[in-house]
């Protein structure tokens, strides 16, 4: 039941009101001024977990970066059969005339040198793969979460449909080898959004756009071959029909998130291997594959953080004073999704490195003479039975250390950022 207060009681109350300055002084004295990020940093450096993580990560990054820029190494010429599989040697002797603190591998290469240089590739994989999944997943999650409960403006709708048209156009354009189709499909998307009231009947609009899509998809491909034209024409028709439906915010979110669910349903390593098999081997391909596989993790994380912020009353208040969507996203939503993203990115680098090592081990990552920890393991595990433990242990320990470092740091960050903002 509502609480009801008669006017006469209200009048009585006014006589006993606390003065504003009373409230102000008490308030100011009790609460201490502090900033969230300074606080979080303090918590981070005072936690043992985070200290350990920070130490390991910065040590490995530092050595790797220094080695990359100041310690020359050419993997293509590094070869010495006379030094094949020598155990760690600290004092040069007759058999091993140079120092090899980690020993040498099957081609007589110094493992220490290769571990230190391999760190660069490993870190790059981690960083680039996570950047791919962060940017794409973050963007999808942001759009899905934001427009799930905020009305899209006309311009935003046009942009979204142009983007979707272009994105969907990739497949037919790739099959027919007609890149211009991507632009045409993007334009079709824009048209769908701009002429939303052009044909009142929904089915009439679907038919019209499907027909135009069919022309775009099939027409250009006729130059290639009639078979291609049939395939891309059909694809184009489907794209046109999909665009004519003009995804609203909730439909877009639904479709995106279901697509993410599908990706997540595959075991991630298997999917990465499949993508590499499709793209071809190589370090860059491996980065892309690992990046794609973890897009859903970021998309879901960002969407759920955005959803929880969008429902806050201060977002409504910001809208009610006329702030635009861009400003709301950058000023109000961004700071709030930053901490879960920071944590996930840190943890994500660790798992991307592990995945890259797995690909390397399977021979799907770095191309041979390039040093990379996973590939080094893959190269050497066969010699374990003949007692060459050093060829496996050192790259293995390196992988373990860096993944451990990022995980400890991620956990520390989570603890440091988690105590929510005091409201």
């Amino acid at each position: 039941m509502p609480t009801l207060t008669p006017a006469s009681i209200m009048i009585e109350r006014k006589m006993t009101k606390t003065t504003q300055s009373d409230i102000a002084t008490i308030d100011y004295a009790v609460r201490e001024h502090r900033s969230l990020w300074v606080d979080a940093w303090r918590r981070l450096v005072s936690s043992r977990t985070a200290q350990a993580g920070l130490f390991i990560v910065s040590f490995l990054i530092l050595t790797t970066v220094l080695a990359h820029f100041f310690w020359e190494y050419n993997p293509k010429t590094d070869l010495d059969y006379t030094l094949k599989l020598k155990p760690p040697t600290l004092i040069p002797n007759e058999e091993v005339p140079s120092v090899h603190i980690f020993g040498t591998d099957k081609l007589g290469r110094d493992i220490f040198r290769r571990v230190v240089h391999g760190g660069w590739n490993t870190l790059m994989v981690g960083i680039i793969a996570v950047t791919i999944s962060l940017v794409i997943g973050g963007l999808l999650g942001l759009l899905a979460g934001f427009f799930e409960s905020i009305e899209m403006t006309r311009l935003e709708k046009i942009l979204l449909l142009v983007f979707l048209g272009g994105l969907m156009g990739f497949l037919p354009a790739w099959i027919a080898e007609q890149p211009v189709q991507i632009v045409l499909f993007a334009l079709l998307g824009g048209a769908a959004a701009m002429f939303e009231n052009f044909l009142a009947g929904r089915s009439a609009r679907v038919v019209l756009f499907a027909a135009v899509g069919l022309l775009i998809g099939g027409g250009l491909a006729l130059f290639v071959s009639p078979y291609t034209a049939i395939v891309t024409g059909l694809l184009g028709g489907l794209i046109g029909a999909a665009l004519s439906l003009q995804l609203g915010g909730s439909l877009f979110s639904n479709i995106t998130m279901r697509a993410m669910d599908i990706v997540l349903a595959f075991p991630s390593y298997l999917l990465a291997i499949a993508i590499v098999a499709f793209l071809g081997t190589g370090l860059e391909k491996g980065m892309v594959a690992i990046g794609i596989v973890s897009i859903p993790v970021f998309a879901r994380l960002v969407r759920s953080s955005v959803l929880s912020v969008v429902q806050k009353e201060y977002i409504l208040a910001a809208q009610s004073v006329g702030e635009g969507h861009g400003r709301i996203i950058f000023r109000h939503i961004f700071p709030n999704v930053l901490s879960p993203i920071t944590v996930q990115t840190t943890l994500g680098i660790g798992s991307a490195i592990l995945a890259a090592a797995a690909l390397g081990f399977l021979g799907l990552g770095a191309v041979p003479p390039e040093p990379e920890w996973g590939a080094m393991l893959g190269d050497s595990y066969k010699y374990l039975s003949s007692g060459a433990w050093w060829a496996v242990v050192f790259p293995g320990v390196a992988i373990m250390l860096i993944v451990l470092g990022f995980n400890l740091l991620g956990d520390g960050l989570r603890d440091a950022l988690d105590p929510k903002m005091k409201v």
Partner: protein
Amino acid sequence: MEQPLLEIKDLRVTFHTDDGTVHAVNGVSYKLEKGEVLGIVGESGCGKSVHALSIMRLISIPPGRIDSGEVLFYGKDLLKLEFEELRQVRGGQIAMVFQDPMTSLNPAYTVGFQIMEALTVHKKLDQNQARDRSAELLSLVGIPDARRRLDDYPHQFSGGMRQRAMIAMALSCEPSLLIADEPTTALDVTIQAQIVDLVKRLQRDYGMAVMWITHDLGVVAELAHKINVMYAGYIIERGHVKDIFKRTRHPYTLGLLGSLPRLDEAPGTKLVSIPGLPPDLVALPKGCPFVARCTYVTDSCLESMPPLENVGDRDHLVACWNWAAIAEGAA
């Protein structure tokens, strides 16, 4: 007659949820004149907030949808504006203050920063001008030592001060309509009275119209010129404060007034509450939505929803088939 400041015509709003379609606002029409204070009362969930938010298209779309209606502000339909034009109205001409001052300010920014943001959306001011104006606004709403408090974070403000800051933000562009959605519900009674006074003063000084949404008939009696009583997404009675209190014609309003404690009654008199619950907005009954709780039910009540009829000589509207009988009973 002069053009009203705001005229709402047959506004209908629904929410499309997994449990079905929630009919939150079901054909609301009324006018609001310049400088008028309109109270909107009704039980929780009767569509007060949704109807107010719909004026500036602030409801969540999706799942919400404005199915029909016009919201004419200075004769211009806000529901048909392009987003950029709508943004000029939001905060520039119509401002809103919300229920919970604890969450209407972003905890990550200083109060001053947020008021300056609101200012610079509509006005081209440089940093210093915006800061001066923000300090001015804060002291206008009664925050002492305003200039220094600009750099405080919301958690350093008390609830009442935050609500004052929200009002300062709302007033920053001198709107001609202020919509206050239960701005005092989350505050303790002393602070409530102060906020009511503040709005009253500002309304008088600036001549702005105010729409005050509340559960609290006491506040409305003190503040408003006219009252809309809402029930299940309908306006079921509307009129001047005097008419609503003295010539009540709708059984629901009678119930609300009956549940208002009076000082002239002997101490210890129990509140009379309306028995039963409001209807489910997903499956509204065919007739009047109040039938299940009404003591005056007749056959026509079960048949169809009564239209809003003028029952007095000055804008006193009632949606009840039996208002005449109730009027006789009261006389």
